[in-house]
């Protein structure tokens, strides 16, 4: 058996990529809404979004497992869409990851939107721009730094996920077995040399991602 398998790396990258994309699609309007709303539900919703920051991943994974099971609410709704179960599937993994990494995308975006503030939007509106137009012509270009941070953190955090994936994804090689779990397996089987290679690779990868992020952020800072 080869010491190193490519599948876990590919699955990890695919999961991180898909999760980040989904998070951008969901997180952007959510962050925009949170940045602008005056409803009294804002605080509880912010708390819910932030929950994954403090909850043990196993707690989140446990509830997701129950919800995703064919008897669970989400599982039953899912059965109308697809014949495949949500648990122990890549789709289930993506949903779990999206929830788990939500604050890492929503919070920087929300901060960035709030930083732009009302004044510029009022100026744009008084010049005849409709709200969606303002979002795309003023808010989006001015919050690219927030997006950069959100994408980096969302991606990196998904790559580093373990507990939630283990709970709802199981450990199916070639389907739901991601890097962090592969390392765990190797350690369990006392295959330290393989664990070393994966761990070092993940360490290096994480370091490079953060380096790139910080360097780019600094360059943007200097340019502004």
């Amino acid at each position, binding site marked *: 058996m080869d010491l190193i398998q490519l599948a876990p790396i590919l699955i990890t990258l695919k999961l991180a990529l898909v999760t980040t994309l989904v998070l951008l699609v969901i997180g952007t309007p959510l962050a925009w809404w949170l940045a602008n709303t005056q409803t009294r539900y804002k605080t509880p919703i912010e708390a819910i979004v932030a929950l994954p920051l403090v909850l043990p991943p196993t707690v989140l994974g446990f509830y997701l497992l129950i919800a995703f099971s064919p008897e669970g609410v989400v599982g039953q709704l899912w059965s109308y869409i697809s014949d495949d179960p949500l648990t122990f599937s890549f789709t289930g993994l993506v949903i779990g990851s999206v929830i788990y990494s939500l604050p890492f995308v929503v919070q920087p975006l929300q901060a960035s939107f709030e930083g732009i503030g009302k*004044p*510029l939007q*009022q*100026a*744009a*509106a*008084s*010049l*005849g*721009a*409709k*709200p969606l*137009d303002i979002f795309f*012509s*003023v808010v989006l*270009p*001015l919050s690219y730094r927030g997006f950069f941070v959100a994408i980096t953190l969302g991606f990196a955090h998904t790559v580093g996920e373990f507990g939630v994936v283990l709970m709802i994804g199981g450990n199916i090689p070639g389907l739901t077995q991601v890097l962090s779990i592969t390392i765990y397996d190797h350690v369990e089987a006392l295959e330290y040399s393989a664990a070393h290679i994966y761990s070092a690779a993940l360490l290096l990868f994480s370091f490079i991602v953060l380096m790139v992020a910080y360097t780019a952020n600094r360059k943007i800072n200097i340019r502004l």
Partner: protein
Amino acid sequence: MAIEFKYKKSYPNFTLDCQFSIPGSGVTILFGPSGCGKSTLLNCIAGLEKTQQAYAKIGKTILDDKEKNIRIAVHDRRVGYVFQDSRLFSHKTVLENLLYGYQRLKQAEQNLDITQIFKTFSLDDLLGSYPHQLSGGQKQRVALARAILSRPCLLILDEPLSALDYSAKQELLPYIQTIHKEFSIPVIYVSHDIKEVLQLGDSIVLMKEGKIVDNGDLVDLCVSQPLLTEQEGASFILEGEVSKINEQEKISTVQCKEFELHLSGNILEEDQYVRILVHAKDVSLTLDKAEHSSILNIVPVEVIKIHPEKNGKHIIECCLEKTKIISVISIRSLNKLNIKPGLKLFAQFKATALVK
């Protein structure tokens, strides 16, 4: 065309309750102490604020009518707004900023002579720059031109010069004067600076504690409401036309309604219309006409009212026929001259002409 407004909005410890109309042309000054609700009122007019009662009409267009559930959205109102901070879009060039509103007009309305407007506001050399490369005065010029290019029916200028230094203010004033002359857009102008007010204003709306105290023609109102500028020290204004110029002594004679005024050092032209600003602290009162005084202007007046003032000073309101003249004097002078309503005195003062 007239412009009508009626807004009511209550906060826990402040109520805005305004009803007034302004002419459909020229510059209307919105004047009042800070915290009196000017910005809230402007935001109501611009559609940025929700209110309990709202009615707004520009000519035949109704912007707000709460009773009929009409509230035109900000982006459809055609109310231009230039703020103290120019609020340019930092990621766009000057040209892109300028065209932001214009490109959002209907195709048929995009028929302004853009290059001419760039020229009017001296923007030709700035078009490729980004906002952070501009000075404060240049930014405001861009903001003004950007608002005009969006073809507003009404333009709000909220203290557009307040963030600028003296020379930048002087540089920008003529551009603001061109707005209603060249583009015939009615302007609501907020300012605390009495000089700006006199140089720009045609009519005035006086505001205090969320309510409109008075409104009407600027000069008429300032003559009958001389306490207008309490904040900067009371002052009053006069108006007239230059009747004579003595080149040698550099003195211009201005014919006001009831008397002649002599102004030194001002470069005026004959027959020119001028507004004259006099600070009440520059007006002294004498019982006899001083024959040997360095003061050029001495007019006979009658005391109408004595307003008690803080810090041992009193404002004495006098009149010469219909012209109001006010003076700030100490309690000692008040007692010494035994000033009472009805007393006839001479007022002597220095004055500054402001060209509108």
